């Protein structure tokens, strides 16, 4: 479904990604774990094309997308829920959600998508006329995920969806992601919450200093010596 080959990315002179390659197959949940500043968000931005200073090949659904505009990527159904959620704070929850369906692919079905998201996340319906800036952390993350779902995604990329959330809310978010996956959406997940995310993923990559240093089945990595030492502290 998504294939990243030998991507090198730069901020000015600084190289942030080095020869990054990864695959996500249709229907999979794939996680990327890695320490701060490893380059995980940059990789997502490269895929979404909000960062354009990179070389290498990125294919989605058999189409080369590494020269596309960001809106073309959205049109293909490759949607990102960005790090820090990036809601539009002075727009209402409803406006935020509706803008999730801005692209050609989903604009016509905006109303039905909104119904669907409200059914899935009834809290958002209650908050629909509230400004997004006034939501609690958990609600804001739900709103960001709901906004991503509005686009009718083929594949969803989550960048640290559990960031800053209470443990109980983290579990809720992970459950939600699992359910989205069950409904047939392919998922690429970036997480610092290694235990939770490896549990729910089919495969995972470990990233360090801009390189992929390890790859394997989620459960295998969870049990591997190195991961346990580096990320789980046991």
């Amino acid at each position: 479904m998504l294939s990243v080959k030998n991507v090198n990315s730069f901020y000015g002179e600084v190289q942030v990604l080095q020869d990054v390659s990864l695959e996500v197959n249709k229907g999979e949940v794939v996680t990327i774990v890695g320490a701060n500043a490893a380059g995980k968000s940059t990789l997502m931005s490269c895929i979404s094309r909000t960062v354009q200073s990179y070389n290498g090949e990125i294919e989605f659904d058999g189409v080369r997308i590494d020269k596309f505009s960001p809106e073309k990527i959205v049109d293909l159904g490759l949607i990102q829920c960005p790090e820090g959620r990036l809601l539009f704070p002075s727009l209402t929850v409803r406006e935020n959600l509706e803008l999730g369906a801005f692209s050609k692919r989903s604009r016509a079905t905006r109303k039905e998508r909104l119904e669907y998201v409200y059914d899935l996340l009834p809290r958002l319906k209650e908050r629909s006329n509230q400004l997004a800036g006034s939501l609690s952390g958990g609600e804001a993350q739900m709103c960001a995920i709901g906004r991503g779902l509005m686009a009718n995604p083929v594949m969803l990329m989550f960048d640290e969806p559990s960031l800053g959330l209470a443990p109980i809310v983290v579990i809720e978010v992970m459950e939600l992601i699992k359910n989205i996956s069950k409904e047939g959406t392919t998922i690429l997940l970036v997480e610092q919450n290694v235990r939770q995310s490896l549990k729910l993923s089919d495969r995972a990559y470990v990233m360090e200093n801009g390189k992929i240093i390890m790859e394997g089945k989620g459960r295998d990595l969870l049990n591997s010596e190195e991961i346990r030492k580096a990320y789980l502290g046991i």
Partner: protein
Amino acid sequence: MEQVFQVFVSGLLSGGIYALASVGLALIFGIAGLVNFAHGEYLMLAMYFAFWMYGIFSLDPYQSALINLALMAILGYLTYKFIMERVLDSSHSIQMLLTLGLSMVLQNLALMLWKADYRNTRIAMTTSTLDLGPLHLSTARVLAFVVAIAASVALYYFLHKTYTGAAMRAVAQNGKAAQLMGINLKKTYALTFIIGITLVGLAGLLITPIYPAFPTAGAPYGILCFIVVVIGGLSSIPGAIFGGLLIGLIESFAGYFIGPAFQQAAYFLLFILVLIFKPSGLFGKG
């Protein structure tokens, strides 16, 4: 007392035009983050266009309004595409210098093409008055006020009640997130510029029956809009409407109670006070 009321209404009428001219500037700054010091020159161009349409085809500024506005929209687009798009990521001081240069180019172009003469567009409305009880008001100024306020309020509703408006506000709040929604930033900036310039053009054609067109006719408006927008809170549309009306009133009262020479000084004083005591503007956040 009657005279004071007349001064009040007169200030309000001018203020409506200031508001209309300013909302475009506030929009361009608020959504695209672009500083435009050539804003007043588009008002001047719309005045000239209205003048020539009357001179050559005997179409008064209201009859030629649609073509005039269409032309302003095109000019707004071209300005964005060929000039402003190049400085999207530059600092505000570079944008300021560039647009100051642009304003000089436009003024001198007007001077070269149409000379420095004052061009008056005298239509029937120029001299007709509306008598409302004790008030004697210029029909053209009342019409200008009504249209100006209606257009400014319409802009506010467009931004807050339509899908495109929501997308524009989204771009203003978080460009990256807007891109992730599939919103094209450059198209949005272009639309912002088109709307902003069309609105200041509308202000220009509305005052053509009242004031003469000449190459620097827009310059005082450019400065005034800038002041209005700072007072109102930079990117706030209601702030720009309120600021425009406020400045119209201050100008009118200062002219009546202190003397016409103090009209500008009075609103500059307000400008400085706002910068000192509420730098984020009356309607600004923070």
